[in-house]
């Protein structure tokens, strides 16, 4: 079975919700839709306070090269346009809409009919994806139309679909693969046209045998799409690790995956692309895993973008009394929420509720130089040294030790037997070194 070679860890899987079918939640009374929902510049607002909007209507336009369109996920009245605390803990502009009914734009095809023939050309597909605000749903929310615009001089050869879902607890991608497999396959074919590639691989870890079996069956007729079962290992869902696992190629330090001729997209993104291109539906809802050891009704919920987290938690059985921490995303890379009023955005893959006793870090000891952080680093860095450089403000040394290559997967800190906050210091170092590099380029 294939996997990446360098580093990696095996956190306890805890896929509590793997067997819970996707449940469509009723629309909440009020949603907050942040204007910055992708990597890059925030989008420009095009609605006003007091205006009535319909479901699927464009409310903010991405104008910069790396930015994306944002649509209303509900119908109703724009009541507020002001800063809210989002999942990252920062205050950012958002449109607050009071929901009235659920009136969709007529241009959107809401039938359940699966439309398999693709009529649009390459350019039309990319335009449609851009127009309908599709971004990477794996977590990084990179605008998909930018990813599909291959820089001149480079050529995409292989499309890789990421169905790895290596984070513990999360099962949203797993359920999407099981319940929307046909649409995902069509989404992959659309992507192959957009990229003009004739080879696609779907990478799935073998803790999801049902998804592997189903997608293998569905792609059997199509010799260009192949499912690749992968050994379970974190962080296999990282682009570089997934490319390595499937093709054996390594993305060079500081370069983009296209250097290897590979483009990676998440399974959820493939579904969103199907809906945008075939059904003309903008990215206004997504599957979110709401889970936790003491949650009474954990599940996978289809929710509208902008739905507050506390509404989701209510539907999953309410906040347990022993709650200590609420995480947006997976337990390895997700962010702890400062407030449950934060809305679900395009990049929200899960909400995990940790009990009080699991919410705190383990006791810290001196570093015993066991070198486990080095062994598990999937980039082959020396976390222990990077921490020393950051702590002692030796940023030139940190840069030469490739601190900027760190993808913040957290394997080092996860594994450190001394419970040292390795990633905290590496993040600090990356921040400082990044500033130094930007200043150097400017001068």
């Amino acid at each position, binding site marked *: 079975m294939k996997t990446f070679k*360098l580093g990696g*860890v095996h*956190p*306890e899987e805890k896929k509590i919700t793997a067997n819970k079918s996707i449940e469509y939640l009723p629309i909440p009374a009020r949603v907050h839709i942040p204007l910055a929902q992708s990597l890059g510049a925030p989008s420009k607002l095009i609605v006003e306070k007091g205006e009535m909007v319909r479901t699927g209507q464009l409310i903010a336009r991405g104008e910069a090269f790396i930015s994306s369109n944002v649509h209303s996920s509900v119908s109703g009245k724009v009541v507020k346009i002001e800063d809210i605390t989002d999942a990252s*803990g920062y205050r950012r502009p958002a449109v607050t809409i009071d929901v009235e009914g659920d009136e969709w734009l007529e241009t959107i095809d809401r039938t359940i009919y699966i439309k398999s023939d693709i009529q649009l050309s390459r350019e039309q597909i990319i335009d449609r994806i851009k127009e309908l605000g599709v971004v990477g749903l794996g977590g990084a929310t990179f605008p998909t139309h930018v990813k599909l615009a291959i820089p001149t001089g480079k050529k995409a050869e292989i499309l890789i679909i990421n169905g790895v879902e290596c984070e513990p607890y999360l099962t949203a991608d797993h359920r999407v693969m099981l319940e929307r497999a046909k649409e995902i396959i069509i989404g992959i074919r659309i992507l192959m046209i957009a990229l003009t590639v004739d080879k696609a691989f779907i990478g799935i870890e073998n803790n999801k045998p049902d998804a592997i079996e189903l997608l293998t069956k569905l792609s059997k007729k199509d010799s260009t799409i192949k499912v690749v079962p992968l050994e379970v290992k974190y962080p296999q869902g990282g682009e*570089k690790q997934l490319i*390595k696992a499937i093709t054996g190629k*390594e993305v*060079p*330090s500081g*370069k983009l995956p296209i*250097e290897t001729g590979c483009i990676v997209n998440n399974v959820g993104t493939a579904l969103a692309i199907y809906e945008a291109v075939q059904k003309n539906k903008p990215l206004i809802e997504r599957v979110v895993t709401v889970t936790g050891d003491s949650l009474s009704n954990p599940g996978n919920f289809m929710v509208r973008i902008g739905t507050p987290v506390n509404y989701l938690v209510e539907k999953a059985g309410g*906040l347990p009394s022993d*709650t200590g*921490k*609420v995480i947006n995303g997976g*337990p*390895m*890379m*997700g*962010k*702890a929420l*400062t*407030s*449950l009023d934060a809305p679900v955005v395009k990049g929200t893959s899960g909400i*995990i509720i*940790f009990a009080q006793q*699991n*919410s*705190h*870090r383990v*006791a810290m*000891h*001196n*570093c*015993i*130089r*066991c*070198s486990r952080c*080095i*062994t598990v680093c*999937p*980039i*082959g860095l*020396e976390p*222990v040294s990077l921490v020393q450089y950051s702590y002692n403000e030796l940023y030139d040394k940190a840069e030469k030790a*490739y601190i900027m*290559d760190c993808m*913040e997967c*957290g*394997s080092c800190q*996860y*594994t450190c*037997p*001394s*419970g040292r*906050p390795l*990633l*905290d210091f590496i*993040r600090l170092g990356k921040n400082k070194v990044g500033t130094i590099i930007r200043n150097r380029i400017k001068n």
Partner: protein
Amino acid sequence: MSLLTVSGSPHVHARQDVKSIMYGVVIAMIPAILVSLYYFGLDSARVIFISIAACLLFEYLIQKYLLKGPITITDGSALITGVLLAFNVPSNLPTSIIIIGALVSIGIAKMSFGGLGKNPFNPALVGRVFLLISFPVQMTTWPLPVPGFTGIMADAISGPTTLGMLKEGLMAGKTVSEIIASSGFPGYMNDFTGAQGGSLGEVSAAALILGALFMFARKIITWHIPVSYLGSAFAFSVILWWLNPEMYLDPVISMLAGGMLLGVFFMATDMVTSPLTAKGQLVFGIGAGILTITIRNWGAYPEGVSFAILIMNAATPLINNAFKQKRFGSATLKKEIKAIKQTA
């Protein structure tokens, strides 16, 4: 609702921590402790107890009164040093000398550098070598084993060890086969079970291997240092033995005799004082293996494991600098540079 905890990712942690690693090593030393009790009796218990108690006490006193910092004697590391120091001395060593050894191990080799994780040399080995140089007679008077947990200090008959006999015999002009044939020379079986004279923790290969297997299973140690250490020492011994079997010891006895296995599995693998990367660990092991055989054959002392490991401890920072982990994407980068150079 009570306040939410907010901290940076990752939010989960692996089970293994410093304590489970340290106490895992202690568990791995139990077979060798039992063998020493079996052959050296109460005396062995006395040495182990005094050594542990003195190590813990010195760590406590130094942390409380000199460093005035947190007390960490429960983390298991001073316990390991205590057991290892006991393992490295004869079972009839006077209590006062053990206490001096503990003071050197903990006070000088460990705490003066800042405590756990900061020491460049293995504390137990520093203690042992200090005692060996300061008390050469007491440190090389080995009681012979008396099976059955009955051995006591007063009645124990002392005798030489495998390597001691070899050194003396060769110096007296005897050949290796004559030395092996002489009475009192421990055979393979004695090396294996522990029925021979020697430092109390080193005598039984079986007990040490059992402990090592436990540490491998619990992923406390990796194969790199033990395999490269034993491999290089074995290869070097084979060459010497092949060149002149009357001058050099049979390589298998070489591996089993003296402190070889104790050093390989329990002291060379000390995380704090060995290199960080797998490559560096291989270099460390190979170096220690060659040094051990060199010191044993051409040095003044019959035994070379302690010196070999301490010398490689000293080389560890250099090894860390020279042998880095292979970085992700660096191979492709090299290939690209090569391709660019070829086209240019």
